């Protein structure tokens, strides 16, 4: 079994980088549902991540969304106020909930 193969050839430093100018990560306009609380969601969540990150979690119970927002506040230090948290969780559960509280 071959483990790690020792490279015997001399290193030839590549003169050309594959990318030698700043690259641009494209913006994708994820189709997120409009509704009550959307502005608050946009103001609080989009700072760190795309809407894709939200909608690709799948439909979730209210407690899930509540805990997710808590995680953003507690662990990721997102400055989301108590009032805004409630609006955001309501929005997420209403638009991306599975109908169950927990």
């Amino acid at each position: 079994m071959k483990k790690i193969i020792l490279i015997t050839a001399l290193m030839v430093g590549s003169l050309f980088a594959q990318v030698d100018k700043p690259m641009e990560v494209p913006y994708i306009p994820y189709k997120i549902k409009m509704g009550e609380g959307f502005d608050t969601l946009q103001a609080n969540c989009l700072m760190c991540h795309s809407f894709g990150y939200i909608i690709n979690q799948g439909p979730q119970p209210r407690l899930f969304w509540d805990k997710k927002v808590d995680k953003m506040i507690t662990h990721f230090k997102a400055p989301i106020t108590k009032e805004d948290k409630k609006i955001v969780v309501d929005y997420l559960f209403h638009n991306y909930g599975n109908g169950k509280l927990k």
Partner: protein
Amino acid sequence: MQRREFFKTSIVASAAILGTNLSAGTTHQPKIGQTLSKMAFPEKRPMITYSDRPPLLEAPRSVFTRGITENDEFYVRWHLPDIPTYIDLDSYTIKINGLVEKDLNITLKELKNDYEQVEVVAAMQCGGNSRSAFTPITGGIQWGSGAMGCAKWKGVRLSDLLNKAGLKKNAHWIGFNGLEKAAYFKTPNFVRELELTELDDHVIVAYQMNGEDLPYLNGFPIRLVLPGYYSDSWVKMLSDITVTDKYKSLFFMDKAYRIADNKTEGETPDHLASKTKPITHMDVKSVIGYPEENMKIYHNSEVVVRGVAFDDGHGIDKVMVSTDEGKTWDEAILKQENGRYAFTEFRFGYKPTKYGTLKFMAKAINRLGVEQRFAKDIPWNRGGYKYNGIDVITVEVV
């Protein structure tokens, strides 16, 4: 009479409520056949795209007919929103400090010239790959089966770098940090910590992938390569290696990428395990790359089923394929040219003789004799990690 009816209904109703509340959590085939984005990311072909910031890109299944995954089809998973979009190679260094005899500041040029250059072909997989197999849906991106790939990595042994720096006697933990940054100053960095005992000679600091620079989105210019381990610790744009005597409590170590610390690594939504552990080594797994789901196949034609299998480096012994819902299994032909950490390619020729629905199932068995189980037998876990069920592809024979 009416009252009795009422009681009957309420008993049924409460049973129904109990039924849903005490659901054990089920496991099934992960999502399949997601569409590719119309937009290609830098140095990538269009991929299944879950998020642009941070970028989360999944490879389509068709990629997994080959033992090596092309750089432009290799999956992408970042944690924090701010990824450097340009690296100045003249000033880029890896810093090694902490409990070492002398701090090092290694440039890319030094890395390529002053150390022994080594290569390893290794599969890499996100701990949450195939997360969409779990119900109730667990937190995290609902990946199909494409948050994995296998490349030939070239770089320098981590142990050579640590030897050069000289580990102090009480060195025990090593922390790895890369250049991705959060939007807020107070957000924890994506630092991984590993015990020195976990780091063998196969762990490398890699600057090349399949003979090319790493794509930016895969961690250009340098990433940690930990053959056999889930990729949460394969730190991208590696910038800092810090040696300590004690484990430092960190969010991404203490809260993320953990699984129930019990024999089955399972739990139920209502009874979450009280103790958890990091996900570390990859379980034996196989994925069918061809044919694709819902494909039409001609009656009496020769189909060659192709896929890849891998584990944590014990190596794949056999891949078995079933065409009768798992009642009987036949051995597939293997191609293993890249060592025990790499994808093993498998292929299996089959001539369908009956019209209608046909299921191909693939089950890998590693050299320890550990084999994949049916999806339904894999216990649910809250993070949706480590899914490795027998893969199933359904086609129609016409």
